[in-house]
């Protein structure tokens, strides 16, 4: 049977099932196929904090959303065009996100009265009209998987586990994806368990063939590769991976060994995992007994001359405050990565949020300014990490690098940089006395950057002591002198403020040139804001967009930029933390638009809000 192949320019697919159903893996594979095919894409994994939350419950539903297109896109999509639901709970939990007309592929296997009751359905939604208005494909995915594996040695239970691969096969057919990568992946992943490898392969192929042969699916789709993107070599990458690579690259660019001191925590742990795999690059990873020891060890390594890093998320960052203050006082380079998640307290460990900005700014005692850098997309985590390293090394200061759960786990195609074109971060250690009579003055500053020299142990003649008590200017000796303290407090602040001089002017995207409203953002809202601006512009409106890489200090021209617009709107996944800083600094009556739902903004909703503001002006 030959089938219709229909060209479309983009699609949003969500697959959902139990946390034990392998939804994340399935999503990853489909993404990888899609990336290699050359589409632009963006993903949104969404899962509970429990490892295997109980089967068939709403709490246990795990989902993965993929948006891909033949042109460049910015978000994983507001609402799925296609939902694959592996059980009643997955259907129930995701149905409200589905626009009418969307395609629904449902595994009917678990639609028993008991399972339905467990999620609060007293009748079967596949039959009772609940799904009217959707294109529903009720399929026996599990049964078909078992049938496909009839000859295998696996138990029924184990065989049934391959149903995600059946679904992946079907989707691969539906969207004309290349399948070689997945085949190779399965073979490699289960190399030591050939039974499982074979079952997965069989299920995957069965799913693909089912699509080809069944009459249920009359058409398949094709989304052409995206060619409008800048030329170069691309790969698909998640934020945590890009961030890890950025750190490894920065260390090599600086000519320093990389040292990570970290304690596992969601969603930051994967950076520890990733970095631990690259020892050949001279990367040392130390899984510490807690977050304080993690940053402590990093600071010790910084004293010894390493590019030192600590990674955590909100609760762990809260524990590091005192040590960050010490790093401020010691003026040693140190990168503190905060992969933000829902707060306060333990909050929502696997959900995203931007609510640690003010913690990064002020979460320690005394006047302890720390530069803050934020990544705006998964791939951008690489550049953000390199920039954080540049600041840390140039200014001898701890630096906050902010990412979040959405960036950490989400992925996108990334234009792989050429290593030889990356910035030179090389560092000069102090090697000679810099004071009178051959003495070494550890706090004699570079007049330009106000950075102090970095003399590492092993350098003869530069033996010196540093500490957290206030230090005399130049000598670094303990000093309780009032004027010296005032001077040192202001000098540390001036050093951080002075970083602004090294920053490029702001880039404002205002294609129409006549926008009255500026949307200012930071971090992972970049995609949704950008998509919303495109919608506004597509609808004939004018809006300008600027996105901050640097939250502290702000770029020198930010005030001028803000002054050019009648209205400034600041969307944030918190209660208005950047808005507070902007209002205080520039006295601009910025409109703070906030959502704290553990999820990225929907571009639609942002666009609607912006339309309102524009109309109002």
């Amino acid at each position, binding site marked *: 049977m030959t089938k219709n192949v229909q060209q479309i320019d983009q699609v949003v697919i969500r697959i959902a099932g139990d946390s034990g159903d392998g939804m994340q893996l399935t999503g990853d594979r489909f993404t990888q196929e899609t*990336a*290699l095919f*050359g589409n632009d894409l963006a993903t949104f994994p969404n899962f509970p904090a429990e490892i295997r939350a109980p089967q068939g419950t709403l709490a246990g539903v795990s989902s993965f959303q993929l948006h891909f297109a033949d042109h460049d896109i910015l978000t994983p999509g507001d609402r799925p065009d296609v939902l694959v639901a592996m059980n009643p709970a997955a259907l129930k939990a995701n149905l409200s996100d589905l626009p009418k007309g969307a395609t629904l592929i449902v595994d009917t296997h678990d639609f028993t009265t008991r399972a339905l009751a467990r999620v609060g359905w007293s009748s079967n939604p596949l039959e009772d009209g609940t799904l009217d208005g959707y294109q529903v494909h009720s399929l026996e995915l599990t049964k078909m998987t078992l049938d496909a594996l009839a000859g295998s040695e696996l138990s029924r239970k184990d065989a049934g586990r391959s149903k995600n691969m059946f679904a992946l096969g079907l989707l691969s057919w539906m969207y004309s994806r290349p399948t070689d*990568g997945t085949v190779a992946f399965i073979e490699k992943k289960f190399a030591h368990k050939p039974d499982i490898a074979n079952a997965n392969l069989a299920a995957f192929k069965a799913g693909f063939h089912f699509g080809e042969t069944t009459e249920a699916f009359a058409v398949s789709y094709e989304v052409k*590769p*995206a*060619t409008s993107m*800048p*030329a*170069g*070599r*691309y*790969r*698909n*990458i998640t934020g945590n991976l890009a961030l890890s690579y950025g750190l*490894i*690259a920065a260390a*090599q660019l600086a000519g320093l*060994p990389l*040292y990570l*001191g970290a304690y596992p925590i969601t969603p930051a742990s994967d950076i520890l995992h990733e970095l631990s795999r*690259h*020892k*050949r*690059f*001279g*990367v*040392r990873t*130390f899984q*510490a*007994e*807690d977050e*304080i*020891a993690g940053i*402590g*060890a990093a600071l*010790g*390594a910084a*004293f*010894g*001359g*390493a590019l*030192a890093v600590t990674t955590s998320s909100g609760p762990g960052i809260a524990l590091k405050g*005192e*040590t960050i203050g010490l790093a401020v006082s*010691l003026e040693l380079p140190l990168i503190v990565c905060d992969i933000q998640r829902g707060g306060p307290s333990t909050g929502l460990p696997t959900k995203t949020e931007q609510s640690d900005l003010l913690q990064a700014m002020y979460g320690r005692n005394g006047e302890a300014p720390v530069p803050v850098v934020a990544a705006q997309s998964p791939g951008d985590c690489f550049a953000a990490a390199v920039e954080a390293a540049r600041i840390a090394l140039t200014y001898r200061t701890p630096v906050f690098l902010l990412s979040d759960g959405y960036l950490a786990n989400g992925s996108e195609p990334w234009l*792989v*940089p050429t*290593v030889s074109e990356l910035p030179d971060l090389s560092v000069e250690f102090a090697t000679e006395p810099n004071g009178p009579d051959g003495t070494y003055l550890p706090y004699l500053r570079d007049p330009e950057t106000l950075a102090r020299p970095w003399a590492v*142990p*092993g350098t*003869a*003649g530069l*033996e*010196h*002591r*540093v*500490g*957290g008590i206030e230090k005399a200017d130049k000598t670094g*000796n303990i000093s309780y002198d009032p004027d010296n303290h005032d001077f040192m407090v202001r000098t540390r602040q001036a050093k951080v403020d002075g970083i602004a001089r090294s920053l490029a002017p702001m880039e404002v995207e205002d294609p129409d040139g006549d926008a009255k409203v500026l949307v200012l953002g930071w971090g992972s809202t970049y995609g949704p804001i950008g998509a919303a601006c495109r919608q506004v512009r597509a609808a004939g409106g004018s809006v300008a967009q600027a996105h901050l890489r640097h939250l502290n200090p702000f770029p020198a021209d930010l005030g001028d930029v803000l002054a050019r617009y009648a209205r400034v709107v600041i969307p944030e996944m918190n209660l208005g933390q950047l808005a507070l800083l902007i209002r205080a600094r520039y006295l601009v009556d910025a409109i703070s638009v906030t959502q704290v739902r553990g999820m990225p903004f929907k571009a639609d909703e942002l666009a609607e809000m912006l339309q309102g503001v524009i109309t109002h002006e």
Partner: protein
Amino acid sequence: MSDLGLKPKDFKTDQEVRWCPGCGDYAILAAVQGFMPELGVAREDIVFISGIGCSSRFPYYMNTYGMHSIHGRAPAIATGLSTSRPDLSVWVVTGDGDALSIGGNHLIHALRRNVNLKILLFNNRIYGLTKGQYSPTSELGKITKSTPMGSLDHPFNPVSVALGAEATFVARTLDSDRKHLTSVLHAAADHEGTALVEIYQNCNIFNDGAFDVIKDSDTRDDWMIRMEDGQPLRFGANGQKAVVHGADGTLVVEDDVAADDPRVVVHNAHHDNPAYAFALSRLQSLDSRYAPMGVFRSVQRATYDSMMSGQLETAAAKAPGDGAALQSLLLGADNWTIA
């Protein structure tokens, strides 16, 4: 150990020492400065890292690299330094509050990991710098500013804590006994891995005389047990007391032990099983009545530092992490080109 021609005074800094007159810290400082030349390590390759407390001011007075860090965190910071720079000789100076109160966790983890640190724990059984609250080593019922009716906390025995935490080297010495202190510093320096040295230190302002039982010449011999490898654990003015194997297998002290009593324990710090050293540590009551002094335990175990370096070397030997390797890492296996 090479002779670098260094003298104790080479380890003095130009900073005024700011301890109270009469503080035991002075004696320890002098002993450490006196010992340093024997370490045979260049000044620039030595680092002293401390926490916060009177004792933790120590690095300012040592003409080496140094860091006066924050309360309780010195073992963690030193772990980062030592594991990233195994070429250095890293020393930690800490107090009983710094090491065992706020810093207890970092201490026990450094010990189990066997990071190559020499930890000098100045135990004055009091918080000196904050003006005299009881510490985790203060005796039960101690009346201090924060415990006007007496403290309720059963104290730690730092040696027992360390042995329970898989320590490879544990010793105890005394501020006022320069010779003993120096010999213990020697042993600690020779040890590869974490060496915990508890140093009884007199705080003459807030806890004066805490160790008088083993300092005063008329009680000292009755209570101090000097442990020397290969030597019977005998003490007392005429060596009439001894540590013996009790009937139920535990170690006990007996008086008037015959010269040839086979039950007398011959000290061996190299038992693989820490149970022996632990039993020795329990001879002590809270008021130092029996105070075994010297090296309790000294065994070999690969250091964390060397194992970490080893993994890096193995990995780099397989495939060096050069610029080309970085480029191919970034590209990954699955990539595509847009023209």
